[in-house]
C-alpha cells in the first residue's frame, strides 16, 4: 500500500488517513458484505447458518490454493464459491433434507472448516505462508479522480463493483420476483408455501447453497485480495459478525451493505489510527466491532428481526 508513505501525517483528518480508512473499510467490508448478503438469503428462507465461519474459511483456503497454483484471481473466486458451497451441502443434506438441528450442524461445519483448512495448510506449506501478488484493480474513469473517495472507493477489483450491484439485484429479487416471495414464505410460513405447490425443501436447499457460495466468495476475497495470504483461523469471527449484521439489518440488502462497511471501517481503523500517530493496542481495536454490535443490540434490541420459522426444520404434515 503506497498510502503508507504518507505516514508522517499526524492529523487524523488528513487526506491519507481518510483514504486509508475508507479503502481499508472497503477491503475489510467486502467479505462481510458477501457473507452477510448470503446469510440474508438463507435466513429469509428459514435456515440459520451458524457454519458461515467454516464456509468462509473453506472458501478462503480453496480460493487461495486455486489462485496460488493457477495465478488467476477470477478462478480463485470461483473456486472459493465452490468451497463454500461444499460446506453448505452438508448443511442442506443434514438440516434441510433430514431436518436435523441447525445449530449443532452449524457448529460442526465451523469446527470442521477451521480444522480442515488449518491441517491442509500445515500439511502443504508447513509454517511458511506464501503470498499472492496484488490483484488487478479497475479504476472507474472520472470518478477515481475525486480526492479521498476516488482512490479509496473507485479503484477496486471488479468483484467489488459486482458485489455492490449484487446487493441491488437482491433488493429487486426480494421485492419483485416470485423467488423473493418463495424465500420469504419458506421462512415465515412454510406450510403456506407448500400449500401453494412450491417445494419448501427445494427453496431452502437453493437458499442454503447460495449462502454457502457467497460465504465462500467472501472468504476467497479475504484471502486473495484482503490479506494476499491464507493463515489458519484468518476469519476471526467474521462469519458470526455477518449473521449479526443481517439480523440488525432485518435482512434488507442495502442496510447490509451499509452495515458491512461500517464494520469494515471499524476493523480497519487500526491502520488509520497508526497513520494518524495514535497508538492503541491491537486487542482493543479487535474488540471494537464486537463492542459496537453489543451496544447496537442493547440500544436497538427490539428492532432486530428474524423470521418466525428460522431454525425450525420443515416436515411435511408434521405439526
Amino acid at each position, binding site marked *: 500500500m503506497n498510502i503508507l508513505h504518507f505516514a508522517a501525517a499526524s492529523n487524523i483528518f488528513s487526506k491519507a488517513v481518510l483514504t486509508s480508512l475508507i479503502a481499508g473499510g472497503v477491503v475489510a467490508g467486502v467479505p462481510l458484505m458477501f457473507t452477510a448478503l448470503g446469510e440474508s438469503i438463507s435466513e429469509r428462507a428459514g435456515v440459520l447458518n451458524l457454519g458461515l465461519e467454516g464456509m468462509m474459511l473453506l472458501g478462503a483456503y480453496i480460493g487461495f490454493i486455486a489462485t496460488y497454483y493457477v495465478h488467476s484471481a477470477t478462478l480463485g473466486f470461483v473456486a472459493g464459491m465452490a468451497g463454500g458451497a461444499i460446506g453448505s451441502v452438508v448443511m442442506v443434506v443434514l438440516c434441510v433434507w433430514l431436518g436435523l438441528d441447525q445449530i449443532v450442524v452449524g457448529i*460442526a461445519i465451523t469446527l470442521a472448516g477451521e480444522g480442515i483448512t488449518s491441517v491442509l495448510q500445515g500439511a502443504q506449506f508447513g509454517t511458511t505462508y506464501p503470498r499472492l501478488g496484488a490483484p488487478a484493480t479497475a479504476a472507474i474513469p472520472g470518478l477515481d479522480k475525486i480526492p479521498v473517495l476516488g482512490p479509496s472507493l473507485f479503484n477496486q477489483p471488479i468483484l467489488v463493483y459486482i458485489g455492490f450491484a449484487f446487493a441491488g439485484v437482491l433488493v429487486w429479487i426480494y421485492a419483485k420476483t416470485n423467488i423473493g416471495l418463495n424465500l420469504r414464505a419458506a421462512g415465515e410460513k412454510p406450510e403456506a408455501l407448500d400449500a401453494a405447490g412450491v417445494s419448501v425443501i427445494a427453496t431452502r436447499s437453493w437458499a442454503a447453497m447460495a449462502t454457502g457460495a457467497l460465504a465462500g466468495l467472501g472468504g476467497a476475497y479475504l484471502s486473495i485480495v484482503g490479506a494476499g495470504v491464507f493463515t489458519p483461523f484468518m476469519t476471526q469471527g467474521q462469519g458470526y459478525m455477518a449473521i*449479526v449484521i443481517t439480523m440488525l439489518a432485518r435482512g434488507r440488502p442495502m442496510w447490509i451493505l451499509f452495515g458491512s462497511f461500517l464494520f469494515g471501517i471499524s476493523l480497519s481503523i487500526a491502520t488509520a489510527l497508526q497513520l494518524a500517530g495514535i497508538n492503541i493496542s491491537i486487542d482493543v481495536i479487535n474488540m471494537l466491532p464486537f463492542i459496537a454490535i453489543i451496544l447496537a443490540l442493547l440500544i436497538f434490541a427490539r428492532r432486530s428481526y428474524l423470521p418466525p420459522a*428460522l431454525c425450525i426444520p420443515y416436515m411435511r404434515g408434521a405439526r
Partner: protein
Amino acid sequence: MTDAVTVPPQTGVTAVVEPPPVGAGGGRTRSRRVAGARDLIIRSLVPVVLALVAGGVLLAILGRNPFTFYSNVWQGGIQQGSWEDSAMRAAPLLLIGVGLTMIFRANIWNLGYDGQFLVGAALITGLAPSLASTPNVVSLVILFFVAMGAGALWTIIPAFLKARYETNEIITTLMMSFIGVGVANVLVKGPFQDPTVNIPQTRVIPLNRMLPSIPGTRIHVGVLVALAAALLAAYVLKRTSFGLRLHVLGANPRAAAHVGINVKRLIVMAFLVSGALVGAAAAVDILGVWGYMRANWNPGYGDTVIPFVFLARLNPLALIPYIAFFAVLSNGGDLAASNANLSTDFLLVLVALILLFMTVIEYVGRRRDLGGSYLTPGLKKALKAPLFRRRGKQQQAEHEVAS
C-alpha cells in the same frame, strides 16, 4: 419484535431413554430393556467410532498412517504416567461441560465459553501475586470465587438481553466471547504483565501456591472438584426444583410461564450458573496446571466439549466417561499430531465428525422410535433375504412372535 429463536436441541432433551415398564410379561420387559440398552450403546458409541474411522480415512488421504496416529494417541494419552496429564486435562473440560449441560437443559445456548473462561483465567493470574501473604487455602478459595464471578459476570449482558428482549443468545454470547478474549489479552499485556520478562505474560504463580496434588500422584485436586461438580449438577438437575424448572423452561417456555415460573429470573440464573462453572474451569486449569497466562492463549476447550455434552444427553454423570475419552484423545493427540507432522487442529476435525455423525445417528434413531429401523427398509430386506431363504418358515414364525 419476535426474534426469539426457540430451538429444541433435539439431540439432547428428546431422547431420554424411557425406563422399561414394569409388567407381568417378564420376558418381554427384559427384551425391551435389552433393546433400550442396545439403543443407548449404539447412539452413544457409534458416532465416536464412525468419527475415528472417518478421521483415519482422512489421515490416510493426507498420507499419514492412521494406525500409527492412533497408537501414538494411546501412548501419549495413557501410557507411562501420561494418564495423569489426561486426568488433569479432563478437569476443566468436565467443568465447562457441566456448565453447558446446565444451561442447555433450559434450551438456552451459551456459546460464549471462551470469553468467560479467559476473563476468569486472566483475572486470577493477575490477582494471585497480591494474595501472596494470605494462607494458601484462603487465597485458592478466593481465586476460585473470583474466576467463577468473572465467568458469571460475562454472561450478564446476554442474559439481560435474552430475558428482557428475547434477543438471540447465540449471537450475544458469541460477541461477548470475542470481547472477553480481547479483554483477557489487554489485561495480560497491560496491568497484569510480568515486568521482569520481555514476552507478554503474567507472573508465574509459585508451585506451593497452586492446587495441591492428590497424595501418590501428580494429579491436582481440581480433578476432584470437577467430579464433585458433575455429581452435584446431576443431583440438582434430577432432584431439586431448580433442575425441574430448567427442564420445564427448556421443554416449553410458555408452559413454564403458565405454571408460575419466573422465566426471566430463571434465564438469568441459568446463565449465571453456567458462566460460573466455566469460570471455575479456568481456575482449575490455571491453578492446577499452568500457573500463568501468556497473551493470546486460548485453549478453546468449549468447542471441543459441545459434542460430548450432547452425546451424554445433557446428563452430567454420563458426561464423565466421554470427557475422560476426549481428554486422552486430546492429550495423546498432541503427541500424535506432532509425530505425524500435522497441525493439532486435526482434533477439531475429529470433533466436528463426531458432531455430524451424532446428529445423523440421532436422526436414524428417531426414525427407529417411529417404527423404523437403523437400516432403510430396502437395505434391511436385502440383508435379511438370504437368511429367510435358508431357514424359511422358522424365521417367519419368530418374526411374527417378535412383532
